[in-house]
């Protein structure tokens, strides 16, 4: 008789490679988790997911109103402020919501974790898929708004070029960035819940340190802060994709990616360290 299934349970966690194999085999579970979250979140609402979908639009209107009145400037790098804010907040909201959602998955799925043997990385995948679906709808709205703006106000310096092909790469970068943040935060949260409360606060601070409401000025005294902020280069690059004469510092990209890799290494290392204790202490 041949043995199809063999499993050896020891005190050590399995390798990341085994995790990936496991995830690949659990497509049905991922699908069911994603479906559950989607239906669970929007059942008995009238507007459904439209709150998340229109969030960037509403934010841009508000930012536009205040910033315009504050410094009487209706253009940033040749683009109307409203469009500029819409571009940056679309991407920022994806990063923000995705990080918050990813960092709460262990506590949210506590009941399942303590009762069923399930690969913990699967929770991150289904939560990433949900936020990714929001982003895709947001991007469609972004293009629609740009189109409408153009019809109403004529030329607005937005250029569609081959640079747009970089957008999927930027999205993948942010997906992994928020995944790493989520993995690190939720791994700590099994013991210390402080991080769950601290993260939204930290991200709100980061909002003002990111090129969302303004353009990075490389002569500024605080320029080094953008180097430390791993979300600043994808935001810059995203806007660069749409504009003709926008510059992104290559050094910024390099430093950001180094910090990104460091974050990834740290979060996975930490996750593997606590993985086997999750169901005991959560």
């Amino acid at each position: 008789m041949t043995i199809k299934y063999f499993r050896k349970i020891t005190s050590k966690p399995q390798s990341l490679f085994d995790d990936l194999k496991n995830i690949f085999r659990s497509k049905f579970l991922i699908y069911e988790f994603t479906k559950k979250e989607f239906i669970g979140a929007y059942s008995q609402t009238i507007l459904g997911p439209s709150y998340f979908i229109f969030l960037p639009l509403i934010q841009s209107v508000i930012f536009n109103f205040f910033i315009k009145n504050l410094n009487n400037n209706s253009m940033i790098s040749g683009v109307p402020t409203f469009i500029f804010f819409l571009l940056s907040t679309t991407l920022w909201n994806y990063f923000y919501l995705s990080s918050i959602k990813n960092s709460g998955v262990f506590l949210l799925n506590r009941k399942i974790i303590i009762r069923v043997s399930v690969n913990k990385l699967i929770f991150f995948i289904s939560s990433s898929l949900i936020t990714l679906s929001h982003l895709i709808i947001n991007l469609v709205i972004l293009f629609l708004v740009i189109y409408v703006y153009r019809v109403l106000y004529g030329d607005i310096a937005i250029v569609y070029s081959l640079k747009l092909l970089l957008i999927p790469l930027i999205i993948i970068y942010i997906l992994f960035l928020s995944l790493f943040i989520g993995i690190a935060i939720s791994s700590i949260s099994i013991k210390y819940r402080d991080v769950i409360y601290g993260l939204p606060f930290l991200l709100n601070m980061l909002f003002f340190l990111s090129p969302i409401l303004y353009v990075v000025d490389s002569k500024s005294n605080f320029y080094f802060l953008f180097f430390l902020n791993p979300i600043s280069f994808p935001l810059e690059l995203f806007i660069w994709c749409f504009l003709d004469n926008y510059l992104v510092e290559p050094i910024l990209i390099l430093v950001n990616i180094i910090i990104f890799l460091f974050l990834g290494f740290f979060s996975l290392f930490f996750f593997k360290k606590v993985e086997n204790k999750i169901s005991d202490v959560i």
Partner: protein
Amino acid sequence: MSNKVIIKIHNIYKDFQLGTFNFKSLLQKKKFEKNKLEALKNINIEINRSDRIGIIGKNGSGKSTLLKIISGVTYPTKGNIEIYGKVSSALEAGTGFNLELTGYDNIFLNGAILGINYHVIKSKIDDIIKFSELGAYISTPVKRYSSGMIIRLAFAIISYLEGDIMILDEILSVADEDFRIRCVNKIINDSKTNNRTLLFVSHDIRNIQELCNKILYLKNGEVQFYGDVKDGIDLYNKDITKI
């Protein structure tokens, strides 16, 4: 290694951390980490294919912990377990039920969580619904079910679990009598026809006698007895009446 042995448990130890994690525990980390409960101590057993094992013992004797380790929910502190087969475990009825989803959707969700694959659920969905006796209510969100209906749905799914090793943790003691007997009969018949190995925790000795052909008696995290049903139950009863 003979083909007869399906689970081989080697020197299993399991510690649980006591106390809460807070500022004080962080300051006195060394002292805090010493405050541990030894839930399992030096467990060494071999389980043969198509054995039906009833696990008995008082509260806190480590029954559930052992099943959790075999299911892969929690990990041993020391030692290892070799498992030569697919484990299907139901440590609790209705794990991960989502109240907003309909009964029908919950069958798929719960099935996926328990590790049944899509095609199996799809082909058995009608049987599961029939077994649960929920026919007309199956497309209603589970939050409007009575607690008895939720339990019936959960048990119906568990009754259709497939695997070489079935692990059931005290779950059959809550359903109503009539339904309980149906579940027990189905599980035992299926395990007999498919040569399944069954690991079963219960405080209800009657259940054990119905279901099992071997007894594992745990006491304070150690194996007190492993073998014949009658001898095991006699020993257990003697220990209980002593107190």
